[in-house]
């Protein structure tokens, strides 16, 4: 048996915190938060749906920053961050679309509709799935990183479109509950629901950073392997 390194211990602590926060979030969302006056119990899906998309946005912001930094400084760690964040962004966007479909059926009567916000979110998922595919299709690592960085930056501009789509076009999707230009979150959402939402969001953030640290380290170790193989071959 070997003792855990400080880095591994930190990851373990983050993982344990995420698990505890997720358990609390589940309990709060399903048992403590009151049902909505109009939508009833089905509104509880909001405690998953909103944190999922906000986590996805955060992930794509990291892809944007990592990609821009890589194109500027050409440091591999920035590319590693962008790659890891893109994978997680795709995961959380896919979850958002699934949760939205399940919420849409009892409230709108359909699983899916070609509404501006839904369509733009689907496009966001396609862009970053394309980002991951692009990386695996180009053999030259540097060329793959450069092409992916350009796509990672362009793709990010879909996010303001998604956010503003409910104001710019007539859509079925409701306006934002939290990030509204005209109202503070506590003016729009009941405090009991806002508490559940805040707990869920913190839990998703902890989970996100735990998964990101694992995924980033996988990429880092893969690079060390390539460097060692290259050194042995030389």
């Amino acid at each position: 048996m070997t003792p855990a390194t400080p880095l591994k211990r930190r990851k373990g602590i983050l993982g344990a915190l995420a698990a505890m926060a997720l358990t609390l979030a589940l309990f709060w969302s399903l048992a403590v938060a009151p049902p909505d006056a109009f939508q009833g119990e089905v509104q509880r899906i909001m405690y998953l749906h909103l944190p999922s998309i906000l986590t996805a946005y955060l992930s794509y912001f990291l892809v944007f920053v990592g990609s821009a930094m890589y194109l500027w400084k050409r440091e591999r760690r920035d590319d590693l961050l962008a790659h890891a964040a893109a994978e997680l962004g795709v995961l959380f966007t896919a979850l958002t679309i699934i949760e939205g479909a399940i919420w849409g059926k009892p409230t709108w009567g359909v699983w899916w509709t070609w509404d501006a916000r839904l369509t733009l979110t689907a496009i966001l998922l396609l862009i970053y799935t394309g980002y991951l595919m692009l990386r695996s299709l180009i053999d030259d690592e540097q060329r793959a990183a450069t092409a992916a960085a350009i796509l990672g930056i362009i793709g990010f501009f879909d996010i303001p479109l998604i956010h503003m789509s409910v104001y710019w076009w007539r859509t079925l999707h409701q306006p934002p509950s939290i990030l509204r230009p005209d109202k503070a979150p506590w003016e729009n959402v009941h405090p009991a629901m806002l508490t559940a939402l805040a707990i869920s969001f913190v839990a998703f953030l902890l989970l996100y950073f735990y998964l990101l640290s694992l995924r980033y380290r996988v990429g880092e170790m893969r690079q060390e392997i390539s460097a060692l193989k290259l050194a042995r071959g030389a």
Partner: protein
Amino acid sequence: MGAWGFVSLAYGIVCAVILVYWIILKRRYRKVETELKHLQSEHTADSHETN
């Protein structure tokens, strides 16, 4: 399906997807870590031989 049915479906899918992704990621992590350790020990042995 009733309201709680939709809620259970959403929460169930999210929990399952996150759990599966975490398991896959952990496996990838262990696989790459093992390969790296193996290569590092070989590399150290090689450099000792060269010296």
